[in-house]
């Protein structure tokens, strides 16, 4: 039987038919976009790890899974259940590119295709349910080509607004009239589109095309309402009157004067008539309506008088507010924006020789060494100068295309600086760095390349200034050069000095660039190159976003007209698309701040803000931006402030997306989790037993997390039960010996020393036998007093009379073998020296152990000690019990992380070994997760430190404490891999745990502290499942 791809790659017989089943997701319940992506990623990862992971078969299987994920994502998007996962969005973008490629002439528009449409569908037609009936099932047989313009816009609005809700209803109602679609029909259309999306196959791979055409339709359609039409008519009439009057007045003839008199008289009379009608005319219908209203019975609810139309509520039944009068957005014949032109071939060619820059700079170091580090005019110095200036000039002209060579060039420049000696030489070297005003003025370079040179120079100099490994003299020379160029001098710790300074220099040129675009001395090519440099220099999204904000700011303040099509508005739209309006990252805060600043800045006219807000509204990628956020062209300060406030409220907050990949719990288990955590935090930890107990409980609660993560409710519940079980133990249970044997007690009413006195009183064998028999006759006796025990033990081992000694041994074995005092006395009696064979057997019987060998005294002591300890209540028993709990919980947790062999060990294993196994299990799990960069540290470093700590640990608690930092780090890694946005908070917890650990007074404190910190991190990864859909 041949093996199916499912069996080969996933270990299952066949892929379930449902999309959820295919991805291993629960068949019921609401899904999250992130959940779908996580499931997909896991399966694709399994496929990729297979030795045949690159085969066509594997790719087909992965594609099937991706299609299942896409269908689920579409359902989620239409249901409005949270934002689309970035991975899904990227996949959709890839499909769009693929579909664009397929759509080339002669490919998709093949006449053979049953779905091929010779031309765009007629506008008035809507897809709606009627059209859906064409196929055998709903949606089947339809493709994106069947959609009308309005369908496309509606579909795009639905997707970006998170489904059919108040926002999408408001937006669609606004545009429905312009397409001849009645508001009452809107819901039917939406229903049809929803079915089309969820059941149909036609949209697959074409969503991007639909979105792009929707954008074009949205931006380009006249969308002229009745009011606009009336305004235009009035305007035309007045223009005509104006022309006539101008001709008549300009004529100066008597006839003209006569005509003017007649015209003005008629005009005045018409005004009088109009005023008379307004003041004295009949109220007509208005009065009738008022009368009717006044006659309405008092107390009738408004809703009864005017029940809301079905269209006034959204899919949740929530009321949709009446649509306010909105400002008409700016219109353009085509959507503003542009596609950046590719990097010029000359630049690419120059960058391809980047290795030569480094070689020249290294050669310059050798030449400089030959000239003793001086740029003094000697031949070697001249050669060094030529090499440095040549290499840097070439690098400055092409660095954005040079990739990693740029950093190498900066490093090589540093080496040249280190080789330079003396202030003059350093000054000369810094002047060789391109980008000074004299340098950019030279030559016939295009404007964008001059900007590149400035940015490169700023980056190089800043790299030297900030790097503490450069000597103060070198740093001072670089600082002076920055001062000469009027560039900001970076101070303190800067993560990426080149990027910060280069982007700063580029940002400083943005206003000039915007002005040059207005005046025509720069083009969109210059903007593309500027943006290319920003992208190459910026090492963080924040830098890129700040640069885009600076670009928008420059455009808004530039002098040219913004409401007319042209490169300026194209630049504005280009920068808008570069910004992050999702609220996902911390960077979006600066976007929110910038929007508010522009709205409130009186130096930016409202007409320009009108264009900006219109473009934001038109960008269907900014789902939350609605037409109600478009500023009117005549808006005053109050209106601007009001809009700024509304915009701030509408801007998505980070908290709305943070739970994207969290482990979601139903309210009840989440409440149980929270209660358990509260209880853990309030546990006392005054001594080592309590701390070890708390560590065991923390491990149990970690098991609960793992159970929730794996969807194993039983395991989760069992983890939480540990808390109750451990805390319900009585104090005696902790300290009592595990074997349960109770120690013998001395007979009541017999004082210690009685036997000693009898023994001493008469040394005859008969008297001593009598004394021994009295010992046997003591009622309910299990032990002797210390004094009697000492005498009995000594004589049992060494009494000269054999019959007395044997009788004494027999009594002790029969009655006092569980007497702690007797056993201790025997132990001490052994210190006297070697005993005979009889003594060996006697001790063995007393200690319940076999005592043998030439050096049996050592064995005997050990056996006696073990028995003594096993009879006593002690704190050591409590420690053993707590450590057994730790071992049990850690082994169960390790099993939950895939180490099934650890689960078998249970509480019998040594706790430090089980914790080590748990650390290994978590490491193996963490190794399967993807993180852009290691967090909180690379696995190798975590393991190195773990080994180092093991080598320092001496006691059991220290050995346990040597394992827990790795457990904490891996917990951090696992949660951060699910929710990268939590990294900063997790890092804080990890740092606090490290400090706590360094200051801990005991190893058990370290153990407990680490596990508590791990628990805090896992807690961040849990979130309550929303009970109803959020937003709308």
């Amino acid at each position: 039987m041949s093996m199916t791809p499912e069996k080969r790659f996933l270990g299952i017989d066949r892929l379930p038919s449902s999309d959820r089943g295919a991805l291993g997701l629960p068949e019921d319940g609401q899904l999250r976009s992130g959940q779908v992506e996580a499931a997909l990623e896991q399966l694709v990862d399994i496929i990729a790890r297979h030795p045949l992971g690159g085969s066509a078969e594997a790719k087909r299987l992965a594609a099937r899974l991706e299609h299942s994920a896409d269908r689920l994502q579409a359902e989620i998007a239409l249901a409005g259940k949270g934002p689309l996962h970035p991975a899904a969005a990227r996949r959709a973008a890839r499909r769009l590119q693929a579909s664009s490629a397929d759509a080339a002439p002669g490919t998709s528009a093949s006449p053979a295709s049953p779905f091929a449409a010779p031309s765009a569908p007629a506008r008035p037609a809507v897809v709606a349910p009627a059209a859906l009936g064409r196929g055998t099932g709903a949606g089947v047989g339809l493709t994106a080509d069947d959609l009308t313009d309005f369908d496309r816009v509606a579909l795009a609005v639905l997707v970006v607004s998170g489904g059919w809700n108040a926002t999408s209803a408001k937006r669609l109602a606004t545009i429905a009239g312009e397409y001849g679609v009645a508001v009452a029909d809107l819901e039917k259309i939406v229903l049809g589109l929803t079915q089309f999306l969820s059941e149909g196959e036609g949209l697959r791979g074409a969503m991007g095309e639909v979105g792009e055409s929707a954008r074009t339709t949205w931006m380009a359609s006249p969308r002229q309402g009745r009011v606009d039409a009336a305004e235009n008519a009035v305007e035309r009439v007045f223009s005509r009157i104006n022309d006539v009057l101008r001709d008549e007045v300009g004529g100066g003839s008597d006839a003209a004067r006569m005509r003017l008199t007649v015209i003005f008289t008629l005009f005045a009379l018409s005004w009088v008539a109009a005023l008379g009608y307004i003041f004295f005319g009949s109220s007509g219908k208005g009065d009738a309506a008022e009368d009717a209203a006044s006659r309405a019975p008092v107390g009738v609810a408004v809703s009864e008088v005017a029940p809301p139309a079905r269209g006034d509520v959204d899919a949740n039944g929530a009321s949709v507010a009446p649509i306010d009068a909105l400002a008409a957005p700016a219109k353009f014949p085509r959507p503003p924006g542009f596609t950046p032109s590719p990097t010029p071939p000359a630049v690419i060619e120059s960058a391809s020789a980047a290795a030569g820059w480094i070689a020249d700079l290294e050669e310059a170091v050798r030449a400089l060494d030959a000239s003793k580090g001086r740029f003094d005019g000697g031949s070697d110095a001249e050669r060094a100068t030529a090499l440095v200036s040549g290499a840097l000039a070439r690098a400055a002209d092409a660095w954005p295309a040079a990739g990693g060579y740029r950093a190498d060039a900066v490093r090589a420049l540093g080496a040249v600086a280190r080789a330079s000696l003396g202030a003059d030489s350093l000054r000369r070297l810094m002047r060789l760095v391109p980008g000074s005003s004299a340098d950019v003025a030279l030559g016939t370079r295009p404007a964008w390349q001059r900007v590149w040179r400035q940015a490169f120079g700023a980056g190089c100099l800043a790299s030297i200034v900030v790097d503490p490994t450069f000597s103060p003299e070198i740093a001072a020379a670089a600082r002076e050069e920055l001062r000469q160029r009027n560039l900001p001098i970076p101070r303190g710790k800067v993560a990426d000095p080149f990027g910060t300074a280069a982007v700063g220099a580029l940002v400083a040129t943005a206003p000039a660039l915007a002005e040059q675009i207005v005046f025509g001395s720069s083009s969109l090519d210059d903007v593309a190159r500027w943006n290319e440099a920003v992208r190459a220099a910026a090492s963080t999204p924040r830098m890129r976003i700040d640069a885009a904000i600076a670009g928008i700011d420059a455009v808004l303040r530039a002098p040219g007209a913004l409401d007319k099509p042209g490169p300026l508005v194209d630049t504005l739209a280009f920068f808008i698309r570069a910004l992050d309006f999702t609220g996902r990252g911390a960077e979006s805060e600066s976007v929110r701040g910038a929007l508010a600043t522009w709205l409130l800045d009186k130096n930016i006219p409202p007409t320009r803000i009108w264009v900006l807000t219109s473009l934001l509204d038109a960008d269907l990628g900014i789902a939350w931006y609605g037409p109600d956020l478009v500023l009117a062209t005549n808006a005053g300060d109050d209106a601007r402030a009001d809009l700024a406030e509304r915009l701030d409220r509408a801007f998505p907050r980070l908290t709305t997306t943070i739970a994207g990949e969290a482990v979601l719990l139903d309210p009840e288990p989440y409440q149980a989790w929270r209660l358990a955590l509260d209880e853990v935090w309030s546990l006392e930890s005054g001594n080592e037993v309590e701390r070890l107990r708390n560590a065991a409980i923390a491990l149990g609660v970690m098991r609960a997390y793992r159970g929730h993560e794996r969807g194993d409710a039983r395991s989760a519940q069992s983890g939480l039960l540990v808390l109750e079980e451990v805390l319900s133990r009585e104090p005696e249970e902790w300290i009592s010996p595990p074997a349960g044997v109770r120690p013998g007690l001395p007979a009541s009413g017999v004082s210690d020393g009685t036997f000693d006195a009898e023994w001493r009183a008469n040394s005859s064998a008969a008297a001593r036998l009598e004394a021994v028999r009295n010992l046997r006759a003591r009622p309910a006796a299990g032990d002797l007093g210390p004094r009697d025990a000492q005498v009995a033990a000594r004589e049992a081992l060494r009494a000269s009379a054999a019959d007395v000694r044997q009788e004494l041994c027999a009594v002790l074995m029969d009655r006092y073998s569980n007497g702690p005092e007797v056993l201790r006395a025997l132990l001490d009696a052994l210190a006297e020296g070697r005993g005979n064979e009889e003594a060996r057997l006697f001790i063995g019987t007393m200690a319940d152990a076999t005592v043998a060998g030439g050096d049996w005294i050592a064995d005997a002591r050990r056996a006696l000690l073990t028995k003594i300890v096993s009879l006593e209540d002690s704190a050591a028993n409590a420690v053993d019990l707590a450590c057994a709990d730790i071992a049990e919980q850690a082994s169960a947790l390790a099993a939950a992380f895939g180490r099934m062999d650890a689960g078998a060990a249970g509480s019998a294993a040594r706790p430090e070994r089980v914790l080590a196994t748990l650390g290994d299990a978590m490491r193996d799990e963490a190794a399967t997760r993807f993180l852009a960069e290691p967090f909180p540290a690379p696995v190798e470093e975590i393991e190195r430190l773990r080994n180092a700590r093991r080598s320092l640990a001496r006691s059991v608690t220290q050995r346990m404490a040597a394992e827990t930092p790795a457990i904490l780090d891996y917990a951090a890694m696992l949660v951060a891999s699910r929710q990268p946005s939590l990294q900063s908070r997790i890092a804080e917890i990890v740092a606090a745990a490290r400090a706590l650990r360094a200051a801990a007074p005991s190893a058990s404190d370290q153990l407990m502290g680490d596990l508590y910190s791990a628990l805090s991190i896992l807690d961040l990864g849990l979130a309550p499942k929303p009970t109803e859909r959020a937003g709308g």
Partner: protein
Amino acid sequence: MVRMLRFLLVAPLAIALLALHAPGSSPSSHRGRWDERLARLDPVRPLDYLELGEEVADAAENEAERRLARELFGLAGALDTQRLGRSAMLALAQFAANDEERARALAAAELTGGRGGTARGVRAEPAQLEALSRAISFHRRGDGRRALGALKQDGADALLDVVGEALAGGADVFREECRSMRAGGPALADADAVGRGIYVELALRQGELRSPGLDLVLEGDAPLLEIDLADPIGTWGVDPSRPWWRGGKWSGNE
């Protein structure tokens, strides 16, 4: 006569100059003799700091020079922890003022660049253990003289030094108690002391496989030595952002 006068004038001056340059005359002069080499140090070459630190440590004649050596070792370790951290920390350990400080430095050496050796807990040779066990028994029975005698056998004294803290709050306390016991006196009545003797002896006899409870009795609950490598000043005692020797002190490049 003239020669005598010249001698009288020159001699005090020469003596004063000699005194000024004599070893141990002043801390600053001692640091001053390294100035030239210190000024040539460059953080790009952290090994230079370590090598100069070794030279300074070898030639150190006063506290100022020893401090300078410590600073050089610290900078070497802080500037290149991965390569030189362990060596620098081991070098710093030789300047430790006490055992605790030394243990901390050695632990830091392990954490900065160790490859995971094996630390051993308390272990005892069989004869050593038997002798100490006898001493504990005699001590429990109130026979201090014989307990002291047992301690003198087979290196039991040395083992007592290791486990004395767990046994009686210190080896010297145990010895002192033995000395103060009168011949023929009563057995030890303190239940806690009796119990500690039992548990410590059993813990020693069970070796590495002892239960956690016994281990805690013997080894205690001292924290595992930990250093925060993210805090270079706390770890190395120097500020790595000030690696340049300028004007007789460490400075940054601003």
